[in-house]
């Protein structure tokens, strides 16, 4: 609607942005410019430094190599697009929660950490200095952290930094997928129970109570013990045992939203129940769902680590943070690094998700003035 002209910046600067996205913003003293420029240059440097590996991934394509390549291209494209876009004055109406989130320092730290962690996980095959499964039973065993092995090596001489990087892929993937399942089931059950009411509500909520009355970890152990442990199984089991909280939350919200005037008005317009639920009720309970999902990912990652630590989760040699910690359990004193670094990774990740979740809750809360 409005033609936005950047005030005064010479056009040469804008053209330099095409090569160095974010440069004109950085020169204007904006933090986002420095971040974008830094990300762009680091990604380019990584691509140049890992030329041989990229060539290898292209000539001998493997799943994880292709994911890394696609992520590299995708991240470069995202940085470039964000860095060359004209500074957007923003839709004053829509931007309120976004700007509130950005001005929340805790949330900003959380988002930053998650972006770094997520990128590192996606780019693991390009970043990792060694093959995570490369065994060296000679002089390479149980080395303390050093310049060549940043996090040391484990009992089998595998490089821990590489294993933690690869483990991030597994742990984050399990966390995301499990919470996706949990939120989908929880939202469906909670929405139907809250909107329909009556016997259906009672039936669904008693089912929730039933599920909640099992101790989660015991249930997890039992189910996993009945089947062959595998990543899909863990995802499904974590998802199936994590939806009850979401469904209670959603039901409560739906109970309140269904009485709002705009839902009554939708009913008076003759819209069907499904449409009212999808278009008028659920979008208005999205906020607590997003917050619950964000906080839930941290929990799912912890649960995965606990399962793997008990030997019922991800199976060796696949690295997940839980399995790495488990493998270092009996070397806690003489090789502290095996348990410490993946443990730190878990703590950082869960903390980041919690920071972002808290930030989102505050930013999306309409009762807070903006």
């Amino acid at each position, binding site marked *: 609607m409005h033609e936005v002209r950047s005030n005064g910046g010479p056009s040469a600067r804008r053209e330099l942005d095409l090569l160095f996205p974010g440069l004109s913003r950085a020169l204007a003293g904006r933090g986002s410019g420095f971040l974008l420029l830094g990300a762009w240059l680091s990604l380019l440097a990584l691509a140049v430094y890992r030329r041989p590996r990229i060539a290898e991934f292209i000539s001998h394509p493997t799943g994880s190599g292709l994911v890394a390549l696609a992520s590299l291209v995708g991240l470069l494209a995202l940085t470039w697009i964000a860095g060359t876009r004209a500074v957007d004055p923003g839709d004053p*109406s*829509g931007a309120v929660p976004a700007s509130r989130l950005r001005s929340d320092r805790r949330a900003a730290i959380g988002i930053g950490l998650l972006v770094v962690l997520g990128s590192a996980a996606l780019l693991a095959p390009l970043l990792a200095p060694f093959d995570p499964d490369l065994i060296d039973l000679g002089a390479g065993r149980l080395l303390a952290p050093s310049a060549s092995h940043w996090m040391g090596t484990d009992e089998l001489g595998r490089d821990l930094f590489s294993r933690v990087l690869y483990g991030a892929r597994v742990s984050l993937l399990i966390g995301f997928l499990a919470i996706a399942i949990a939120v989908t089931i929880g939202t469906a059950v909670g929405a139907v129970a809250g909107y329909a009411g*009556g016997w259906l509500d009672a039936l669904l909520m008693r089912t929730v109570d039933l599920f909640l009355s099992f101790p989660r970890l015991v249930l997890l152990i039992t189910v996993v013990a009945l089947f062959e442990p595998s990543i899909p199984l863990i995802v499904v089991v974590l998802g199936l045992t994590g939806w009850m909280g979401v469904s209670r939350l959603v039901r409560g919200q739906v109970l309140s939203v269904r009485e*709002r*005037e*705009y839902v*009554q*008005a*939708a*009913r*008076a*317009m*003759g*819209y*069907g129940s499904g*449409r009212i639920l999808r*278009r*008028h009720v659920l*979008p*208005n309970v*999205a906020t607590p769902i997003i917050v619950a999902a964000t906080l839930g990912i941290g929990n799912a990652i912890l649960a995965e680590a606990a399962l793997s630590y008990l030997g019922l989760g991800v199976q060796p040699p696949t690295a997940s943070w839980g399995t790495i910690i488990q493998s270092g359990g009996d070397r806690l004193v003489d090789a502290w690094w095996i348990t410490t670094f993946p443990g730190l990774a878990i703590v950082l990740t869960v903390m980041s998700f919690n920071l972002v979740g808290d930030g989102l809750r505050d930013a999306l809360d309409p009762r807070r003035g903006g």
Partner: protein
Amino acid sequence: MSGPPLLEIRDLRVVFRTVSGDAPAVDGLSIVLEAGEALGLVGESGCGKSVTALSILGLTPRPAGRVVDGSSIRLRGEELLRAGPERMREVRGGEIGIVFQEPMTSLNPVLRVGDQVAEAVRAHLPVGRAALPGRVMELLETVGLPDAEQIARAWPHQLSGGMRQRVLIAIALAGDPDLLIADEATSALDVTVQATILELLDRLRRDRSMALLLITHDLAVAARMTDRIAVMYGGHIVEEGDTRSVLDRPAHPYTAGLLNSIPDPARRGVRLEAIPGSVPGIGSWPGGCTFHPRCSRSFARCEAESPPLLVGPATRAACWLLETDE
């Protein structure tokens, strides 16, 4: 005019379940509305006006509220109380549009205005995707919104109360209804905005030869908008007649009381008369004529027997005075 009237309500009774048994909210209400006619349903809050409106649409508040057997609501002769849920969804918004009191909260806050109007159109008319935006613009222009394109892209919170009420009217009109129910549609608005919205409703009714059921507590609003007025008290009609007659020669003491409680510049300095007491809550309506405890002219018969609608000098009123006077 031949054939059944557009809307005919006969002996509508709606009860609410309470701890002390079923309490009537609408108690034997009967009104007839012809096509293209404007009828004012007037009464104080708590007299059953809104429950009546919701019951016409089959939306009696559940599970507490229930329409009693023997009631009848006919739309062009079709009994709505026996219509199935699919049919009622066609009626809602398609044949009967409704505008509620609260413009600030009756729009979904997370959908753009244009999308909400488009949804209403698509729910009731076979308009293709290509023709939809044009139809939405047309509706927004019909309700007098300037710069319809900009309004369509706006979020509800960016509009003023008057603009939102116009959008809600556009949504109610989307299905081209034959009857528009305005349930206190202007009561929450500033007086000046109220006047423009009333003008709009009046113009729309005439342009579209649509019937209007104007539900209001404000006799002055009903006076300027309607052909006929039905005054409601205690869950049923206590006086009914054409608008001029009800205003000039009211037969029921309640109607007279309502008229006397309207401030009149010509009677400056004279103390404003109010009807003593207040509307009894649902479940505590008195026997006999429900108005008798507040009526200055009540006598023995009023306590004992509930009066039917009797033909008075200019109107029909449910008051025993009409028999006594003759």
